[in-house]
């Protein structure tokens, strides 16, 4: 229990730090979103009219006041308004998160399955040719840019072959190509880690003991090696969240899908600070939550860690 409380407290501190860092960095950017929107010559407003609007948005209030105001807003679930469009940021996120969660979640599952398929397939020693082939897949795939993969899938599968529609597709249909686009590059590093851990674990003395007692290679792989090899992969999966978010930005743009990635891409272009701040905090929060979950899963998977956690020793 103390382990849980300590980990949760650490997560909260990380979040506050992320908020503060993002707030300061965004404030340090040249210009501000009000300026970009209203001083944009395309509106043709006179200097006086611009001054009126600036006053309305309270752009020129001192930084500490803005910081406290924004932090309190965030604590109460109020993320302010997009300066570019005026849409409440909470509404933007509420509509976008389910789309990105569906895309990212399914992509992660598919990536893990793909990685597992590659790793375990390549660890069955009988089929040496298959093993070599599969082991050469991850280094190849890891170098494919997400953006390019997306465009190629759209052009070939949708436009040439006409198998799935990209424009206004059904909910399932709309996920097929984006999920592949996101999952394939993600599966490569996972597969590499998994292959490496399987090799490491397979070289351990206890495996030799099990083998000496007559276990089949498949039995060893399934019962003894896999369980031990999964730990580093799990850590990696937690760390890959960053890649997942980055990949979502590109995937959602290529496919014109709604989601956090699209919002981020648009907000970056327009320096829409309230939106960016909320996205950064959201990304930090999911990072913290996923890694917290991974940390809490460790003791479940490895009894030795569970014992330490009970005693409150750092894992």
């Amino acid at each position, binding site marked *: 229990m103390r382990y849980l409380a300590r980990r949760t407290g650490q997560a909260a501190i990380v979040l506050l730090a992320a908020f503060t860092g993002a707030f300061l960095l965004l404030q340090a*950017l*040249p*210009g*501000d*979103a009000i*300026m*970009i929107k*209203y*001083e*944009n*010559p*395309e*509106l*043709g*407003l*006179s*200097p006086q*009219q611009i001054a*009126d*609007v600036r*006053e*309305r*948005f309270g752009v020129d209030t001192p930084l500490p006041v803005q910081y406290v105001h924004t932090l309190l807003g965030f604590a109460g679930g109020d993320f302010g*308004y*997009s300066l*570019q*469009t*005026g*849409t*409440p940021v909470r*509404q*933007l996120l509420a*509509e*976008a998160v389910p789309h990105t969660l569906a895309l990212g979640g399914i992509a992660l599952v598919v990536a893990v399955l793909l990685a597992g398929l590659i790793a375990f397939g390549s660890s069955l020693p009988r089929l040496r040719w298959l093993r070599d082939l599969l082991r050469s897949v991850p280094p190849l795939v890891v170098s494919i840019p997400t953006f390019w993969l997306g*465009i190629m899938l*759209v*052009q070939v599968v*949708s*436009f*040439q072959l*006409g198998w799935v*529609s*990209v*424009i*206004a597709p059904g909910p399932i249909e709309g996920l097929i190509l984006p999920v592949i686009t996101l999952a394939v590059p993600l599966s490569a590093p996972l597969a590499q880690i998994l292959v490496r851990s399987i090799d490491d674990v397979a070289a351990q003395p206890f495996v030799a003991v099990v083998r000496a007692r007559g276990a089949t290679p498949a039995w060893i792989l399934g019962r003894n090696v896999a369980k031990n090899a999964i730990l580093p992969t799990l850590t990696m999966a937690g760390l890959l969240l960053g890649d997942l978010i980055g990949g979502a930005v590109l995937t959602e*743009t*290529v*496919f*014109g*899908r*709604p989601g956090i990635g*699209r*919002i981020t*891409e*648009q907000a*970056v*272009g*327009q*320096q829409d600070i309230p939106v960016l701040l909320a996205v950064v905090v959201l990304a930090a929060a999911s990072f913290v939550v996923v890694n917290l979950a991974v940390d809490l899963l460790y003791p479940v998977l490895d009894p030795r860690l569970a014992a330490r956690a009970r005693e409150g020793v750092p894992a």
Partner: protein
Amino acid sequence: MSATFPTRSAVAATAALALLALTACAPATSGPAAAGSGEPVDGGTLVYLEHQAHTTLYPPSAGFYPNGGIVNNVFDRLVWQDPESLELKPWIATDWEVNEDATEYTFDLRDGVTFSDGTPLDAEVVAKNFDLYGLGDPERGLTVSEAINNYERSEVVDADTVTFHFSAPAPGFLQATSTNNSALLSADTLDFTLEQFAPGNSAEVIGSGPFTITDEEIGSALTLTARDDYDWAPPDRAHQGRAHLDAVQIQVTPEDSVRVGALLSGQADYIRYVEAQDEAQVDAAGFAVYAPQTGGVNNHLSLRPRGQILSDIRVRQALVAGIDRQEVVDTIYSERYPLATSILSSSAQGYLDTSDAFGYDPEGAAALLEEAGWIEGAHGIREKDGTQLTLVVNESAPQPRSFEALTLISQQLKKIGVDLKILKADAGSAAEAVRDVEQVQVYHSMVARADLDVIKSQFFSQNRNALLNLDYDDGTIGDPRLEELLQAVASEADPDQRIVESQQAQRYLADQAYVVPLFEEPQVYGAAERVHGVTFESVARPSFYEIWLAD
């Protein structure tokens, strides 16, 4: 601006041409001739792909093209501007009267027009519309319309008559009432704040147009549904009554190759923003390409005369002479981007050919720079008193292929010893830099508006101030003569005299070497063969009202 050319016969002629093309079994033609053949069919949903998501439905801020496609189809206006002749014709206003010095406008309104929430479109609500657009409301974040100058107040004469009063002549007001920026909204909608006009709340924004917004997915999709009881199209339009289409599905598809591919594979019917390098692919596949002109201030470079280097007219003249505009158009764009012959588009009101001032003459340019004391220095870049002849131009993200064009221009200028650097920055840095004459000396932009006022919008100190004639820091004006000329265009009541004033301003901008016009900017659209009845308003925003789908 050319004298009356009856619209109906124009449509008939277009239709006849299209029929000819069909009977000749020609492959689907490019351009408007493909539209309007056969008998219109009602029904169907048009899938329309946008390049970017819309940002607001508050009309005075809705100039951005992705907003325009929505505003032009969901809201009506008082007056209709014929996109061909640019003449102003009745729409919601059946008739109007303007006093001699253009300080009073009285409109008679059509009977029986309703907003989609059932409320009547009467004098009261029209007055409320223009009170907001003419005066703005900073409290709600709502700005004044750039197109409405000197607005004082409205006066409801009776249920279908309204008068507007101006504190000084406002000759551009009548045309302003025909633009997207003056779209008519219901009384409730006019009480909205900027936040309520934002994406996410679009279905709540009520107009009286042929379509209503019925569904929205923020930033990615919007559904427009036809109003069955719509019966107040401009009398001069070929079609009357409800729109042919049942609905329009607007999908935001930012990636160029996906937009074009979706059109060619039949997943989309109609797309906006076909880039110049993709046109050939769309043409070759037998799809229609439409390139209506935006017809205002041409795509151009402003040579800002208050900067240290460019305050010398000889340097500005040298830049003008050192840029091979024809090569830019031929290399970077297509034949749908005609070479500019004035700061105004040749289809704009009051246009004056000043191409004599923009000839390519690299030797002359070099001689002018020598004369101005800029002597060839290290690496071929000229120098004077230890300073290099280095200038900065902004990449203008909304303009087609801005970076490519500027790169070529920079190479051309290098030949006469000028170092032109391109500022490729994020929105914030760019917004700040373009307001400082020592950071961005050469400013790349354009403006679309089909009225004589457009030249004033672009260069006047209180509007876009493209030349930075007004110094934002000390409030001084660099060239009072330019201010006078521009002010005259917007405040002269006599229409013929306004044309004279506009032409003087064009001449002055050319003679002072303040501008380098590049090309006449089109909006380029692609459409499938089944899409008929494609039309645009006067600055190339799409109208879905007359579109029908054949299959």
